[in-house]
């Protein structure tokens, strides 16, 4: 059988049964699937379309397990088309989008609409995977019709953005979702402790005279959730972990065999609360950026596997919404365009290995949420990202595909960039 596409001379970021990581390979594609991955031989010729990947890294298409795409309702910030365009450019082949749209995605008809829009705007990918609301209107009063929504295409359920205060309600939501083999994702924030302050309570908030949110607000709810997961023996996924105490609680729970998984985001691996100095609203995010000690704990937790996933928590906002007093600015960082480059910036010094990045941004979310991924084995979907680690670029209106530029990296030089992206063997970037 002969390939219809070959990606020549790229270096594999993570090894396969057949080819070790860091080997130069020729990746052979046939009918949208991997035909074979073989050691690169510069003298070999192929009778098919060929893409030169010398000097580039080959990664599988990534999965973003946590994004906000704002459609329906706030399309001026982002819509499904622009969000998926940013995802494609950032190396993501699958985007799981949160339910806090307007109206809230708490009904199968809304789920179906979102999927229709995605298929029409991006017929060849990236693929959208809506996350349904746990409760009607995110109000944590009545459960959402999860069976119906799961059938319509909701991949998981979450009240992200509005933490569920009632432990009893949350428990029932986890049980009900599990009935339909869906996982609940929790935004952990003990809601009576400085809700959505957008900055860590500590030295910097004291200096700036801003209200802060203490790490204990997050960790207290993480503790509740991991104990519930153990008690129910049902999976719970903890969203955007930001602090050391949460990591320790998750490690403790995993040690006891609780079916807990967790994610963090690039900004919690790279920035501290000091990014808020000068009242920088671009660094206002919920949960807030913490201390250097927390950043180091997050890095170790990702490398060691306590944190399973790196997600973007892509939270686009318009310029005029962020150009206000810190207290008034909405929380959130636009992340789809930059996440992979930012995370890969942690690999040269081996804070993270490339294989671990692939695991945390592709294999783990694929396994947890049941999305098939490319492991560069024959028969896998030919979803391939070509990444140039030496490409320098500046985050700007010209280089970012998201409608929103609310990132602390705006105007800064970023090292490394996706130069091509294939889904099912078809080039989408």
């Amino acid at each position: 059988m002969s390939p219809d596409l070959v990606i020549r001379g790229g270096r594999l970021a993570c090894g396969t049964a057949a080819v070790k990581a860091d080997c130069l390979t020729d990746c052979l594609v046939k009918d949208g699937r991997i035909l074979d991955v073989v050691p690169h031989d510069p003298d070999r010729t192929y009778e098919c379309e060929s893409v030169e990947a010398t000097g580039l890294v080959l990664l599988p298409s990534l999965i973003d397990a946590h994004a906000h795409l704002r459609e329906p309702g706030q399309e001026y910030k982002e819509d499904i088309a622009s969000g998926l365009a940013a995802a494609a450019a950032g190396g993501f082949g699958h985007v799981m989008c949160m339910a806090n749209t307007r109206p809230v995605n708490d009904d199968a008809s809304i789920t179906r609409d979102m999927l229709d829009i995605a298929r029409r705007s991006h017929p060849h990918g990236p693929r959208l995977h809506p996350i349904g609301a746990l409760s009607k209107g995110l109000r944590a009063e009545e459960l959402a019709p999860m069976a119906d929504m799961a059938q319509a295409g909701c991949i998981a359920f979450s009240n992200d953005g509005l933490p569920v205060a009632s432990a009893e309600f949350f428990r029932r939501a986890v049980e009900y979702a599990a009935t339909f083999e869906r996982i609940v994702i929790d935004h952990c924030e003990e809601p009576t402790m400085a809700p959505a302050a957008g900055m860590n309570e500590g030295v910097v908030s004291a200096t700036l005279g801003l209200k802060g949110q203490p790490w204990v607000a997050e960790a207290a709810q993480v503790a509740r959730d991991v104990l519930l997961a153990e008690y129910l023996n049902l999976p719970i996924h903890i969203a955007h972990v930001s602090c050391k105490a949460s990591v320790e609680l998750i490690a403790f729970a995993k040690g006891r065999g609780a079916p807990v998984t967790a994610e963090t985001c690039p900004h919690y691996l790279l920035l501290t609360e000091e990014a808020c100095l000068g009242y920088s609203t671009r660094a206002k995010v919920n949960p807030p950026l913490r201390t250097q000690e927390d950043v180091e704990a997050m890095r170790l937790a990702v490398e060691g596997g306590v944190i399973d996933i790196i997600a973007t928590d892509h939270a686009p906002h318009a310029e005029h919404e962020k150009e206000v007093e810190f207290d008034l600015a909405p929380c959130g960082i636009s992340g789809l365009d930059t996440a992979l480059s930012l995370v890969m910036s942690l690999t040269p010094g081996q804070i993270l290995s490339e294989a671990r990045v692939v695991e945390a941004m592709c294999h783990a979310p694929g396994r947890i949420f049941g999305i098939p991924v490319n492991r560069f084995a024959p028969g896998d979907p030919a979803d391939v990202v070509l990444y140039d680690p030496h490409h320098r670029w500046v985050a700007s209106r010209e280089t970012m595909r998201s409608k929103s530029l609310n990132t602390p990296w705006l105007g800064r030089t970023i090292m490394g960039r996706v130069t091509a992206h294939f889904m099912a063997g078809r080039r989408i970037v």
Partner: protein
Amino acid sequence: MSNDTAPWPHKDLLDTDQLSLADVKRIFDTAVSFQEINERPVKKVPTLRGKSVILFFAEASTRTKTSFDVAGKRLSADTFSLASSGSSLSKGESLKDTALTLQAMAPDAIVLRHRYSGSSRFLAERLECSVINAGDGWHAHPTQALLDAFTLTQEWGSVAGKAVCILGDIAHSRVARSNVDLLTRLGATVRLCAPKTLLPMGVSTWPVEIHHNVTEAVRDANAVMCLRLQLERMQAGLLPDLREYARTFGLSPRHLERAAPNVRVLHPGPMNRGVEIDSTLADSMNSLVLDQVASGVAVRMALLFLYLTRKEAAQ
């Protein structure tokens, strides 16, 4: 020595930490020279004639606003008041749009009081005129700190080596933040005294002593500064009631028996008599409350002079 003819090096006054000790000395020297004007029968000089200052108080304040107004008028600047109620801010206009509107009126300075921390910096980054922070959220109140330090300097000649105790709601006080910075840099020892609910989480990194007992906090202190207690702290669950606060953290004459001889009592006003300060103390020989008000005018005259003439001096 401060150089009185060098151009003033700052466009804006956002907090005391922007000012070098030489800058502070120059402000104080200038204030001393203006104090004399305040004692004349005709309290007005033409120094800032033709200059305009917008007093933009988006949060209620009588004392600070009047002080700036008097200071500006005594130097013949035109002062214009803008309150938040009645301005388009109350109609939902953003601070950025308000800033651009104000800019179009081409003032020489804007004095801003605003409930959000960082708001004066926000304006300063967007306006060509000088922005003087008259209190932003919980963040800073540099002119109050300057007038407090000026008042004490006039009393003692210098604050260096003195112990100043700040008593009350530190966590939510812009006055405390700016005073801690300025007084410690001027060589004073600063003690803070409050229940733990009214101290910010990061306070352990500040260059201060922390106390929870007023008697200990004021022992051998040379000055005690009481802060106004905001009554909403009870609703926020930070305090049980006024009576307990007054008995536990209010300053009373018996506390001052342990203080240094001639201890001075300050209060940025307006006072809750009988809450954070015993009424008799407010009116006692120890009280500098009215001296603070008088110093406030002189210091603000100095600030308006230095900021509004910074370009002329440069030429």
